[in-house]
């Protein structure tokens, strides 16, 4: 029970309810204060005023006339009204006349007039307490005069009002605490559900999802977000498992080859030349395995690339560099290579990744396009204002049904089995495109007889340039209409520089 209370009082909902109750209590206190001063203060002030006037009248009488007249006046006034209480006493405080029997307190008044308030009782048998307030002072020599205004029921009415406000306040506090307990239990139940879901996912039940009640409240929003996150995690884990399987499958054959080469090197140990050749083959095999591993790691690291670290990348310059780098390579394999690169293409991105993607695509074009007569690289802005880096070759191409599949890791079409590589080049380029919120599109390329060729387009959105700190410019900006940029036709170029 104690633990339950502790857990309860820790919840946010309960803390809010408690705060709410305290605020309500403070309001009640303020209200009590206001009622008290607005009613009791008013009544007391008016009673004091009446008593003062009455006292002054009587005191004036005692000044003008004899003591008898004073006595007479008090007897008359006491008989005529119940609203005032009078008492005339001698210097010892003994009653001479008036409608109350004794001075309400033992204090003997000095010359000064003193304020007094007291309770008195009326009626025989069922005595009823009444409140009065007034003044006591000396008149006509050393006689004592008390004049007080009867307050009737006013004080108890005020007291009851104050009391009821306090009671309402206390009730409100209790009710708000109780409401807090209920609300916090409801909220805690929902939160507990989330905790249960999270824990079972942690224990490995990846299919578990948080319940969406349909109330469409903030908890539902949270549940939906949590479920979406879990869906993504599940998808990633599936993808990872798939990649793991693919890696295992794909690395088994080169490792097997490596092993048999080493084994034959061992058995040929007495024939140094043969053994040496086998060992050299093994090193080549190991190097290509390591290349595959590097590519896998590059792919994984891609996930960690932070788009916030992107910088301005000059795509035009990058494309020129790549074209220059690969032009002699195409020439070497007997392919006519041309390029057409529009000026002023810029976007935000990671220059090294984009260069890597282009290298992969150009490598592919060299490897698979060598059977065609020509290849080209084009860079331009399309109608949707996206930057397109297009590489076309005249090789065997990729049949339409396989075009999505070849972008996956380790997927190699049968016809490419004879070429070196691990089937990661396109998936790396696709990952780079995705990282830049772009895409990789495959289509037919430069047809060459019965070979359709391949076109690979790396499409990048033009990301907003980085915010630059600029001094305010006073001169009005002259806006020049930009001519529409036509898609440049590839030209056979002699030299780019």
């Amino acid at each position: 029970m104690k633990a339950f209370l502790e857990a309860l009082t820790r919840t946010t909902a309960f803390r809010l309810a408690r705060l709410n109750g305290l605020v309500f209590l403070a309001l009640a206190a303020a209200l009590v204060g206001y009622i008290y001063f607005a009613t009791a203060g008013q009544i007391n002030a008016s009673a004091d005023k009446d008593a003062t006037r009455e006292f002054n009248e009587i005191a004036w009488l005692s000044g003008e006339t004899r003591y008898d007249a004073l006595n007479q006046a008090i007897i008359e006034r006491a008989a005529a009204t119940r609203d005032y209480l009078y008492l005339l006493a001698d210097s010892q405080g003994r009653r001479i006349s008036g409608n109350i029997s004794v001075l309400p307190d033992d204090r003997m008044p000095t010359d000064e007039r003193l304020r007094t308030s007291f309770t008195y009782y009326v009626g025989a048998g069922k005595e009823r307490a009444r409140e009065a307030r007034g003044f006591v002072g000396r008149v006509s020599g050393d006689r004592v005069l008390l004049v007080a205004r009867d307050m009737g029921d006013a004080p108890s009415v005020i007291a009851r009002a104050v009391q009821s406000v306090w009671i309402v306040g206390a009730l409100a506090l209790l009710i708000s605490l109780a409401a807090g307990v209920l609300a916090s239990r409801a909220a805690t139940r929902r939160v507990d559900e989330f905790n249960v879901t999270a824990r079972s996912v942690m224990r490995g039940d990846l299919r578990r999802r948080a319940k969406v009640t349909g109330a469409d409240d903030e908890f539902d929003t949270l549940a939906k977000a949590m479920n979406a996150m879990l869906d993504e995690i599940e998808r990633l884990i599936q993808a990872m498992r798939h990649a793991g399987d693919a890696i295992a499958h794909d690395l088994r054959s080169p490792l097997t080859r490596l092993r048999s080469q080493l084994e034959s090197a061992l058995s040929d140990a007495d024939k140094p030349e043969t053994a040496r050749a086998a060992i050299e083959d093994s090193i080549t095999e190991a190097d290509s395995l390591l290349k595959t591993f590097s590519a896998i790691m590059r792919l994984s690291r891609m996930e960690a690339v932070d788009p916030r670290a992107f910088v301005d990348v000059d795509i035009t310059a990058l494309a020129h560099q790549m074209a220059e780098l690969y032009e002699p390579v195409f020439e070497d394999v007997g392919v006519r290579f041309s390029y057409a690169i529009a000026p002023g293409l810029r976007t935000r991105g990671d220059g090294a990744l984009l260069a890597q993607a282009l290298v992969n695509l150009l490598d592919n074009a060299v490897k698979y396009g060598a059977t065609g007569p020509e290849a080209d690289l084009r860079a331009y802005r399309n109608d949707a204002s996206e930057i397109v880096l297009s590489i076309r070759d005249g090789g065997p191409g990729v049949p339409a049904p396989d075009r999505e599949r070849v972008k996956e890791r380790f997927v190699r079409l049968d016809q490419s089995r004879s070429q070196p590589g691990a089937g990661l080049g396109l998936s790396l380029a696709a990952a780079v495109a995705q990282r830049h919120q772009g895409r990789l599109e495959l289509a037919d390329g430069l047809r060459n007889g019965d070979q359709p060729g391949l076109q690979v387009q790396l499409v990048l959105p033009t990301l907003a340039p980085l915010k630059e700190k600029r001094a305010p410019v006073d001169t009005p900006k002259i806006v020049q209409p930009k001519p529409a940029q036509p898609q440049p036709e590839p030209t056979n170029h002699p030299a780019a520089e």
Partner: protein
Amino acid sequence: MRVLTIEDDRDMASFLKRALEEAGHECDLAADGETGLNKARDGDFDILIVDRMLPLKDGVSVVSEYRSGGGTTPVLFLSALGEVDHRLEGLQAGGDDYLAKPFAATELIARIEVLHRRRDTPPPVTKLTVGDLEMDLLARTVERAGQKIDLQPREFRLLEFLMRHAGQVVTRTMLLEKVWDYHFDPQTNVIDVHVSRLRSKIDKDFQEQLLHTVRGAGYRLQA
């Protein structure tokens, strides 16, 4: 030359030691960062080879402490596979070059020889000469035996790098890094193609070949 290798992996260390000694260098070993830093400070070495991940003190700290203590010996960082992103970090800490594992022994030897040569660079020159091949760095012209050779800008830079390291082996990766400033390896033989183009321009019409291919390693420009 005397090389200090700070490497905790025993197999790797003995591989390095053997490779260095086969190439005619002396090699001292340290198996952790603390020992390595002390040896580097006390000993008189021509090159430090430092692994990034070390017990007691990691490679980057070793080098930055060594540098802040006034050490000037060139440093080659080694990193495990997949740590290439840390290249900049290593260079900023005071490393002079960076090599990702695994690497061929020839690559390592080529790099430390270039590093060592760079240490005692002659004052800036305006002319480079290898045999009868001359390069004027100001006029950006190249002549061989008095005959002008036309080079494209990239070819000029490639030849300049080879001439500055004349007599030394430069690897394909080094060329890609230093001439093109790319830090990845293409599947195709991009560099070979560029080098053979350059070769056809400077060697084709001459009896003596200057640009040699070093099998399994790279290239060497030598008269």
